[in-house]
C-alpha cells in the first residue's frame, strides 16, 4: 500500500460509482485493548461482502483522510484512512494504520466478493 494521494484515490473512487460493489468496512482498537488498559472502552464494527451501489464517493480532509460514499438511501463512511492500493484483483483497498503499524480502520471496495 502507499500513502494516500488524494487525486489518484478520488479517481479510483469515481471508477466504482454507480455499480454494484462489495464492501469490507472495519474499525477496531484490538481484542486486547481493555486487557492492557482497563480504562479503554473497547468498540469496533465489521461488515464484509455486503453489496452496495454508491452514487458519489468522496475523499475529504487532510491526512489521515475521511472517505464517504453516498448511497441512494444512506451513507457509508470511514475516518482515519492513511494508505491505499488498487490490488492485483482490481479491488480498491484503503486502510488507516496508526503510528505503531496497527490497522485501525479499513474500507475496501470490489466488483467481486472478497474471500470468506
Amino acid at each position, binding site marked *: 500500500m502507499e*500513502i494516500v494521494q488524494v487525486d489518484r484515490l478520488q479517481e479510483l473512487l469515481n471508477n466504482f460509482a454507480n455499480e454494484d460493489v462489495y464492501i469490507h468496512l*472495519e474499525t477496531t482498537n484490538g481484542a486486547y485493548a481493555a486487557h492492557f488498559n482497563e480504562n479503554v472502552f473497547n468498540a469496533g464494527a465489521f461488515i464484509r461482502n455486503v453489496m452496495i451501489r454508491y452514487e458519489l464517493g468522496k475523499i475529504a480532509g487532510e491526512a489521515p483522510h475521511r472517505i464517504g460514499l453516498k448511497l441512494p438511501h444512506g451513507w457509508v463512511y470511514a475516518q482515519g484512512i492513511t494508505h491505499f492500493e488498487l490490488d492485483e484483483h482490481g479491488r480498491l483497498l484503503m486502510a488507516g494504520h496508526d503510528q505503531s503499524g496497527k*490497522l485501525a480502520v479499513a474500507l475496501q471496495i470490489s466488483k467481486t466478493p472478497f474471500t*470468506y
Partner: protein
Amino acid sequence: MTLPMERHVLVVFPHPDDEAFGVSGTIATYINQGIPVTYACLTLGEMGRNLGNPPFATRETLPQIRKEELLASAKAMGLTDLRMMGLRDKTIEFEDDEKMVEMMQNLISDTNPSLIITFYPNYAVHPDHDATGRAMVRAVRRMPEEQRPTIYALAFSNDSKEVLGEPDIVHNIKEAAVQKMGSMRAHISQTAWMLEEMDKRLADGETEAENWLNFERFYTYDFSKDFE
C-alpha cells in the same frame, strides 16, 4: 525435563501464533519424546492488526502471510500434523455452538488424544480464545468420564490468578528453547514487537523474560469446577 508419557496430544487454538509464546516449548518437548502431536488452528488470523507502517501487507494478503508463518512455526517445533480449520478470525463466538462442539468431537475421535491443550474458557481474554475453550470443554464433558482426555488450559486474563490460583502444571521446556524461539520468530509479522521487548528484558537480566524460554504453565481443567 521429561514430560509424562501421552498417547497423543491434541492442541487447539484459534490463531496462528497462539501456540508460540505459551505452548510451543511443550509441543516441541512432546515431539522430541516421540509423542504424536496434532495442532488444529481454527483461523488464519485474518483480522490481525499488525500490518506495519509503512504496511507490509493488506487485509487481503495477511492470511497467506500468516499461513506461511504457521507452517514455519510447525517446522520449527518439528510438528507434522498441522490442521487448518478454515474459520474466520474474530467470528468463532458467533458460529453455531453445536457446530463448534462437533468440530472438536471430530478432532478428538480422529486423534484419540490422552491430553488436550486449549484455552481456559472465560479467562483467555480474546473472544476467539474463550469460544475455542468453551467448545472443547463441552465436547470433552459429553464423553464418559473414564474416557475423557485431560485438558491443560491456558489462562491469562488479569483476574485469572486471583480466581483460579497459580497454574498447577509447570513444564520446564529449557531443552526445547531453540525450537520455541524458532516458533516465536516464525510468526514475525505479529510477534516482532513482543520479541523486541523480550530481547531488551533478557539483556536487562529480567527473570520473568528468562522464564518465557524456560517454563510454560497450564491449569488442569477441573470438571467439578466447570465454567457452566
